């Protein structure tokens, strides 16, 4: 039953205008920013290498930037660095898309005036909720994979301008390690919160506060640090990527949030079951 529910919840998600509009608008915004930033550096690197533009005087630049631009001119965009940056930005996109995808999952039944028909059927609340969760999360995972590949295409386009190759694997790796656990966790978090509060709309302000003060940046800490309390692993987008320097911490962080995802889903199922019993006993 869980797969059947998932199949139709997935369809409902894909036919939701809000889902696509959110994905397209926010995605375009972030990609244009990433593209513009990287393209600008590539241009600077080329001009520095040519020595034709006095605006890019190496004496006035910080040494780290000079080194980076020189590396850009020699080897193009580092796929590992760029992939981490793309995944980093995409996490912020997807926690918002997940908010609207998962927060209103159960409100959808109520708005469609279909709750009584659903409740009169011999449905296990666990299977129903599990199917709904998967139906919400799978389109997000697919969309994020498409965006990760789009990130690769950006680096490929810019590197080919320099006559240099690019590599898809770091983008897939960043997707699997950074984006997937973030999407799984956020969707479970929002779903549980919506069940606890009883309304999807009530989740939005709470999620906003959580995002601003707890989710992205750890309390009183640096948002770019790898911290086990931070569900979005931030990458600084430089050459020293998290893959090579902090691999163990990243895995521990991701494992922590995957574990929390399972716990949240169990809690959501219990709350859903409790709510149904309460509704029947009204």
């Amino acid at each position: 039953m869980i797969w059947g529910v998932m199949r139709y919840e997935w369809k409902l998600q894909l036919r939701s205008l809000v889902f696509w509009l959110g994905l397209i608008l926010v995605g375009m915004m972030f990609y244009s920013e990433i593209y513009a930033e990287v393209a600008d550096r590539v241009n600077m690197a080329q001009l520095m290498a040519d020595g034709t533009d006095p605006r890019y005087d190496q004496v006035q630049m910080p040494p780290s930037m000079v080194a980076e631009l020189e590396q850009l001119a020699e080897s193009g965009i580092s796929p590992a660095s760029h992939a981490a940056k793309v995944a980093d930005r995409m996490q912020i996109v997807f926690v918002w898309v997940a908010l609207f995808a998962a927060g209103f999952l159960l409100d959808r039944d109520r708005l469609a005036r279909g709750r009584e028909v659903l409740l009169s059927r011999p449905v296990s609340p666990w299977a129903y909720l599990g199917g709904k969760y998967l139906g919400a999360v799978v389109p997000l995972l697919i969309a994020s994979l498409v965006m990760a590949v789009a990130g690769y295409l950006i680096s490929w386009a810019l590197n080919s301008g320099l006559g240099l190759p690019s590599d898809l694997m770091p983008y897939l790796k960043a997707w699997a390690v950074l984006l997937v656990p973030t999407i799984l966790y956020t969707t479970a978090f929002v779903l549980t919160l919506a069940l606890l509060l009883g309304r999807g709309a009530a989740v939005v302000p709470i999620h906003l506060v959580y995002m601003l003060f707890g989710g992205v940046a750890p309390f009183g800490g640096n948002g770019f640090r790898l911290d086990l309390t931070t569900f979005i692993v931030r990458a600084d987008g430089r050459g020293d990527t998290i893959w090579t320097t902090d691999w163990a911490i990243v895995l521990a962080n991701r494992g922590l949030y995957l574990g929390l995802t399972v716990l949240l889903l169990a809690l959501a199922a219990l709350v859903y079951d409790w709510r149904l019993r309460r509704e029947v006993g009204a």
Partner: protein
Amino acid sequence: MIHIEHLSKTYRGGVRALNDINLTIPLGLYGLLGPNGAGKTSLMRILATLLEPTGGQVTVFGHDAAREPGAIRRLLGYLPQEFGAYPTLTVTEYLDYMAILSGVADRYQRVNEVLELVRLTDKRHARTRALSGGMRRRLGLAQALLADPRLLIVDEPTAGLDPEERVNLRNLLADLALERVVLLSTHIVEDVAQVAPSLAVLRRGELLYAGPVSDLIRRAEGQVWSALVDDATAAALRSRHALVGAVRTAEGQQVRVVAPEPPVPGAAPVTPTLEDGYVALMGGERS
């Protein structure tokens, strides 16, 4: 077979919806009549295991509603008064989804069968949001029939249907009742009169009548009168008695009145209908 014993329901806040209801519903089509607020929907929601009673016991085909709601849901098809379907799904997709939730084995075949039954086959690829009100009610009935239920509960199924659709749906319910319990709740007396051999009448949570339709009609014998009156008399009758019909003619108004005595001199007794019996039972409340 459904047995209801000493059933009562009081909502949080103290609103009493049902009070000590005792009722046995046999196989076949059974009507449930009553004005708004009578407790019909509460009774049906309890039978559909969507609401827990405050007291009493309900047994559906031997299953206790309080202890075995899952078993009852496997035997149940339910069309609530307020029915809606996901607007972005097509008719077939919606029914397939509901068939999954009902645990139907051969979904493709069963969906086609119920579409045929409710005459929606030509709309199978239409989005549910594109259906008219009548088609949506038929879709509601289709989803209730998916699991071939032994107990079919339909709440106001003919609301919003045109006369031809109403007749078709009534006939369909009568056919379905040959092999199952069909509980038809409505405030349209005509719907019950045409297809239900037995009925129950509720008012303000109390069971006023349960039994054959013919007995309820018989109760009104000698209490239904027809008379041709002027407008002033018609108005006076309306304030004193239950006026179940008034047809304006060139000579005045031909009225049909439920009253224990002839309401005006010259009033002629007429053969009662179920509506007359229902009005008489309600004690002269205006219909």
